[in-house]
């Protein structure tokens, strides 16, 4: 691409650093004539100079019929009216639109930068939190150690309890055995005593006791009849 706007022999022909663009275009009066022209004529003819020049030129062209008034004049009047109306009405809107396009470009680039900064800041926060967590690990380990010790203690106590209960069971068994044995001996003795007593009752004694019972019963029945 030939940079045709670059002066070939009068500048250094180097692209970098790029010279800054002017902020605004050249000042123009009535949208057509640069301000420099008016400044050029100002010392000799003052403020109205260029206008007199313009009017005189126009009248000269018209009166000498160097410019002939024909149908194109009317057509040009119309198209110029349309152009001037369009520029006056929509000019500032179009300029604002162009500025907005540029602004959006800048804003999106800035947004990228700000996003990156924000992400990095969030990362820093997270990192700090992780460091705090790492500090807290010693407490965590202490708690875990306590837990384990408690579990071991509980287990030991349980086992002690088991041992005690087992031993007690064994001893209870022995005690129960001894009680049972004594009980059995007692019962046996009682049975033996009863058996020998019953055997010692002679038939004579049996008859006497039965007769006595009958006499008692009769007496009882007599008293019962009397009572009734």
């Amino acid at each position, binding site marked *: 691409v030939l940079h045709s*706007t670059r002066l070939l022999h009068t500048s250094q022909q180097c692209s970098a650093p790029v010279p800054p663009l002017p902020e605004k*275009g050249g000042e123009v009066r009535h949208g057509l004539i640069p301000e420099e022209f008016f400044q050029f004529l100002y010392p000799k003819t003052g403020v109205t100079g260029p206008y007199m020049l313009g009017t005189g030129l126009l009248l000269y062209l018209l009166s000498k019929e160097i410019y*002939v008034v024909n149908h*194109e*004049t*009317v057509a040009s009047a*119309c*198209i110029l009216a349309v152009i001037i109306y369009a520029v006056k009405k929509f000019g500032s809107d179009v300029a604002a639109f*162009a500025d907005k*396009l540029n602004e959006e470009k800048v804003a999106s680039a800035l947004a990228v930068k700000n996003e990156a900064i924000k992400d990095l800041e969030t990362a820093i926060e997270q990192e700090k939190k992780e460091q705090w967590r790492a500090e807290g690990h010693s407490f965590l380990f202490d708690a875990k150690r306590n837990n384990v010790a408690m579990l071991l203690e509980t287990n030991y106590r349980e086992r002690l309890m088991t041992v005690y209960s087992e031993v007690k069971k064994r001893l209870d068994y022995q005690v129960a055995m001894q009680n049972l044995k004594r009980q059995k001996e007692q019962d046996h003795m009682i049975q033996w005593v009863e058996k020998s007593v019953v055997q010692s009752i002679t038939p004579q004694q049996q008859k006497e006791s039965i007769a006595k019972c009958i006499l008692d019963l009769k007496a009882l029945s007599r008293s019962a009849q009397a009572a009734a």
Partner: protein
Amino acid sequence: MNLSFFDQFASPCLMGIPLILISTLFPSLLIPSRNNRWLTNRLSTLQSWFINLITKQLMIPLNKNGHKWALILTSLMTFLLLINLLGLLPYTFTPTTQLSMNMALAIPLWLATLLTGLRNQPSASLGHLLPEGTPTPLIPALILIETTSLLIRPLALGVRLTANLTAGHLLIQLIATATSTLLPIMPTISILTILILLLLTILEVAVAMIQAYVFVLLLSLYLQENI
């Protein structure tokens, strides 16, 4: 200079030197070339935005192969737009009022789309000659009709652009002549005619833009069928 109605459409000539090339290439001078800056001035920003808009609009219906045509279609659109709009200024010559130039644009481009279609997908291209769902007895007649319409396309493209612009320019000239002739006779009617001329000028501005757009749109449509 006393103008006749033909002078606007005569190929410009200065002392025997034909100026037709300069007048055709002049619009390219009005487009600022691409800057290497990121934030350009207003004109360049607007131009970039506009060209992006046109290219997107034209390229959305086309498939990947059709995107090769992006440069020529966008530049054609900008070219025609600028030529048409500049032709509305007084004493300017509009190259697109010449049938020769419009046919020179239309026939090669249309032929290119046709040959692309016939080369890459011949049966699909020929299949466009018969719309879907036609009743069987109508098929021969319809093929003839479709072929005729296919062959008439470049003619239509060129003549449409020429006729619209020529008619518009001629109308402006005639009504302007009527205005200037009526001015000493019946000034009121003259004022009325000037109002008509104003409306016509606005119409012509619209027509200039629309005709450029239609030309390029139709070409992209023919491309869609064939690519």
